[in-house]
């Protein structure tokens, strides 16, 4: 069985942050299964390393497989992205009313994001590989990707 490791787990391990003990316990609990990541996760974590090789060596130590040939499945991603956009609401912290972010230069409506969040590609990658994900961002993934099992 394969398990996708979200960047939040890897960054927590590599930085030994306040979530480190929890990340370590999760990795130990599931280490007999195959951990995998795709290029989105690799790049997010790679930002903190000086070279690909340095990160690859550390991933190898943790037995994490880097799947470079991931192809996004649009029929999984797009309906969920639409739901996300529909649910995305902004509220004024003063009056509490729903509002719309406006560009300070041209006054355009900024309600819709220009780019799809990498979370959607990561969830799709997990779905394509058996549907198991290790992440610290459990609420977000549970809300939008009911097909994925968030391991605890």
């Amino acid at each position: 069985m394969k398990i996708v490791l979200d960047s939040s787990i890897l960054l927590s391990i590599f930085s030994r942050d306040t979530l480190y003990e929890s990340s370590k316990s999760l990795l130990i609990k599931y280490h007999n299964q195959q951990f995998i990541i795709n290029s989105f996760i690799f790049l997010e974590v790679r930002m903190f390393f000086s070279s690909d090789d340095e990160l690859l060596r550390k991933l190898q130590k943790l037995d994490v497989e880097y799947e470079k040939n991931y192809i996004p499945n649009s029929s999984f991603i797009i309906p969920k992205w639409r739901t996300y956009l529909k649910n995305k609401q902004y509220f004024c912290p003063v009056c509490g009313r729903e509002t719309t972010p406006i560009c300070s230069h041209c006054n355009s409506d900024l309600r819709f994001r220009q780019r799809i969040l990498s979370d959607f590609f990561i969830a799709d990658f997990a779905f394509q590989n058996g549907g198991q994900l290790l992440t610290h961002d459990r609420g977000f993934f549970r809300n939008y990707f009911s097909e994925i099992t968030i391991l605890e």
Partner: protein
Amino acid sequence: MMNKIIAFRLNPKRAALLKKAQKKFKGKNISQIIEKALENLLLSDEEFEKRIEEVAGSITLPKGHDALKEIRQIRGRE
């Protein structure tokens, strides 16, 4: 212990698995690849924890950030 040679019959499924293991474990020969694969499979919790400790603390996040906050910011959700 004396070295012994064992026979391993290759069928298509085993050949494919061996090829995958060769790619993953990068051994010099088949014996080494099988050794690494078995070691990996049977790695104890303590040994794996040691590996985690070896890579822990190799990067620094911006002050006041944990991994979750950092990732949410990278992804533009915060």
